């Protein structure tokens, strides 16, 4: 700093002045624009839910067709159990989606309360994935694999089915573990929110 340069004010005040002196680009939306934006947002949310419903519909159609053309009771029952699992998930998504449509003023909660609620919601979601997303498919898939194994005529076919079954199991365990880790991280974040400041 040269001798001619005037001394700077105290840093905290300087930081606030620096912050507030930023050039801004004001935004002002007309009532029509506001309504149009709000409707677009609602459509986007509905679109996201639609993708999840379509995936479930695909499972229902594929396994429903399998149940229709099944050669025996075990195969038909296994396919119907998978269809039931898909429908259960659709129902769960629908009720969860309804719960997510929070009133517009919920975003005006204090920052801490809002943040805590969001963390809790995410925690509840990931910690229950195995219960409401993985486990419902287990009985139907187990029955279908068991029935196919019972009909297997060659050791090679039996081995392939066992391999496929093991792969499905490992995938389910991996998904459950990942979500378990995420749930633990979220619990830590929730605890940190309520912890006294170390100062």
């Amino acid at each position: 700093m040269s001798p001619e340069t005037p001394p700077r004010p105290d840093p905290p005040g300087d930081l606030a002045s620096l912050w507030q002196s930023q050039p801004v680009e004001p935004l002002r939306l007309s009532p029509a624009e506001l309504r149009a934006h709000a409707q677009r947002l609602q459509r986007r949310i509905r679109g996201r839910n639609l993708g999840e419903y379509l995936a479930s519909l695909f499972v229902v159609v594929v396994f429903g067709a399998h149940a229709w053309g099944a050669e025996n009771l075990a195969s038909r029952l296994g396919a119907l159990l998978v269809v039931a699992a898909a429908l259960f998930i659709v129902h769960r998504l629908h009720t969860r989606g309804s719960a997510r449509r929070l009133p517009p003023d919920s975003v005006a909660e204090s920052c801490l309360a809002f943040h805590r609620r969001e963390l809790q919601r995410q925690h509840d979601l990931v910690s229950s994935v195995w219960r409401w997303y993985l486990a419902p498919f287990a009985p139907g898939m187990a029955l279908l694999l068991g029935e196919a194994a019972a009909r297997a005529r060659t050791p090679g076919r039996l081995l392939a089915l066992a391999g496929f079954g093991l792969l499905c199991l490992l995938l389910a365990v991996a998904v459950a573990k990942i979500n378990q880790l995420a749930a633990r991280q979220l619990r830590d974040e929730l605890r940190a929110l309520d912890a006294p400041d170390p100062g």
Partner: protein
Amino acid sequence: MTASVSRQDALYQEVVATYGPALDRLTRVYEADPERRRDLLQEVHVALWRSLAAFDERCSLRTWVYRVAQNVGASHVVSARRARPAAFVGLGTLDQLADEAAPEDVVAHRSALGRLLELVRQLHPIDRQVILLYLEGLDGAAIGEVTGLTAGHVTTKINRIKGALARRHREGERHEP
């Protein structure tokens, strides 16, 4: 147009006239990309307008506005981090970052404002919200009302963050040509 809708629109106009610049500044912390930041600012405005239908003076309009803006911004960061995970900086590490700022890093961010933005963006959500409100000129009590923190908690956080930001700011000035 019903009376309630016109009240909602009138409140929105009042909010934009009084807090428009603050809303613009806040979104710069929550989104660095200019185009996405513009979208976020629109999202904040729409959320504010929608929420004002239920504004019943349970708190001041200023508190309401800052809560909505900060909560929408924080939700935006959560969504963005799902796609691009990055670690937040705790207050303990923040002190270290300020002390260990490498000259080349500081020179690369010559703008003092750029350094400030960069550091604030790295803070944990609640710490970020506290310092943003401080930079907007709110006092400890007002910050506590917006964030839900106690006055003591707010003071502690502000002192620590201010100190680290000020040190980083001075480091940056020393390395400017």
